[in-house]
């Protein structure tokens, strides 16, 4: 066997091609980071300057709330019910089923309600915003707005982002209450605990930090859903494929960011406890 063979294991052109691919991916990644950053800065620049689009913001709030209301009601109730049902055997082993309401409320108000609401809204509202703005871009409706003397960014993006930022905390609070109601059903059926006692036990372990953290989380999640959906739709490429990509990108990116934000905020709030 010839041991002096100097032929590289990976041929040079393949290597170059691979590096070119990596370089392009990195360039694209940093370019998109820059673009998202510019998009967010533009939002803060334009959203709080007159003229204000109050009417459109209210309409978008209504759309966001109504679009997710049924699904959130159902999911919230089931989450509360199932969570209580699954936690019962573990607590029963220690004879601590009376702690169930406290456990349910801590889990729901601190983590589940904002998270579940945000994930549902990312799927329902985020994809809808991405698809709507994407199709408006593709069919030149955004250009039509621009040439008719309207600022489409302010009218389409700022209103939607503000709407999701305002609506998601309300929906998350609602999800929390509905989930607690679901938990009550399980506790009532098994132990016959009265509603008044249950509610007392539910709110007892919750502190001001819990409510504040949940509220901040919901606001951050709402902003993320709105800005990601709008970014994907507003900058979608031509064609129907672009609309699909915008809708899909809006959901996937928003969900990914929501999980990262959840971890970050949980870590930060734990320092204050």
């Amino acid at each position, binding site marked *: 066997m010839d041991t002096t063979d100097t032929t590289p294991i990976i041929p040079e052109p393949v290597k170059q091609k691979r590096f070119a691919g990596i370089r392009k991916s990195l360039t694209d990644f940093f370019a998109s980071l820059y673009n998202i950053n510019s998009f967010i800065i533009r939002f803060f620049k334009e959203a709080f300057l007159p003229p204000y689009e109050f009417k459109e913001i209210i309409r978008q709030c209504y759309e966001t709330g109504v679009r997710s209301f049924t699904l959130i009601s159902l999911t919230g109730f089931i989450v509360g019910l199932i969570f209580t049902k699954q936690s019962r055997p573990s607590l029963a082993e220690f004879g601590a089923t009376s702690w169930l309401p406290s456990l349910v409320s801590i889990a729901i108000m601190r983590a589940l309600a904002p998270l579940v609401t945000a994930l549902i809204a990312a799927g329902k509202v985020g994809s809808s915003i991405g698809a709507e703005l994407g*199709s408006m871009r593709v069919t*030149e409706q955004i*250009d*039509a707005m621009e040439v008719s*003397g*309207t600022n489409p960014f302010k009218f389409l993006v700022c209103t939607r982002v503000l709407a999701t930022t305002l609506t998601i905390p309300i929906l998350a609070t609602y999800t929390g209450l509905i989930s607690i109601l679901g938990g009550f059903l399980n506790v009532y059926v098994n132990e016959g605990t009265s509603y008044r006692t249950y509610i007392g036990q539910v709110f007892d372990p919750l502190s001001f930090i819990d409510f504040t953290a949940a509220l901040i989380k919901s606001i951050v999640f709402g902003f993320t859903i709105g800005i990601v959906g709008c970014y994907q739709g507003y900058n979608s490429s031509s064609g129907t494929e672009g609309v699909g990509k915008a809708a899909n990108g809006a959901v996937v990116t928003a969900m990914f960011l929501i999980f990262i934000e959840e971890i970050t905020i949980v870590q930060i709030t734990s320092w204050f406890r």
Partner: protein
Amino acid sequence: MEKQKAPIDHKNAVIRVHGLKKAFGDYEVLRGVNLELYQGENLVVLGRSGTGKSVLIKVISGLLQADAGTVEVLGQKIDQLTTKELQALRIRIGFSFQNSALYDSMTVRKNLEFPLVRNRRGIGRKEIDTSVERVLEAVSLSQTINQMPSELSGGQRKRIGIARTLILNPEIMLYDEPTAGLDPITCIEINELINEVQERYKTSSIIITHDLTCAKQTGDRIAMLLDGKFQREGSFEHVFDTDNARIKPFFDYNFIK
């Protein structure tokens, strides 16, 4: 149908384009376009698909930025305007899109009201209704007022698209392929509408098309865009009275002489 010539003020150019260049990546679409549109004139820009005709009017309306050259609209240089100034200028320019670009989620009435309500804050309900009725009447589609864009035919959508631009009484009209995708009879109706708009609203227009019937019926002057520059310009007859191997076929493949 021959076009009735409207009076054109050749001393007063409402649009001046000089040395306009625009590239997308490595592909240079416009390579030094010079153009003047005179007051009251209908200028037809002819050219094959992909020659940059639509890019030209998008640069004029400020939707795209030029790489080089100057664009002056109604005495204002587009690239030197602030966002607010550009917005104010755009109100004076009507842009009819190739696919009409009607807002899908709004009725015809809301589509027409939109530019008016956005640009004339505090306008009364009565004035809005009067304006909407006036432009709908101008495009002969009063009966569609409460319909959704999805319920309209291609020709109706084009007309409503034009009506939406007329509601702000523009001084300049930019038509992007106004007859694309329409049957010949509807094409003729749209051409007549373009001439009516010119006459009634005293507009100056640039009409982007590759439809020679449209060019002949609506154009006071024709300019042929080839290789990113205007290669031939003048009356319809003059432009096609040539043996140029790239212009002649354009005329020969159409059936009007």
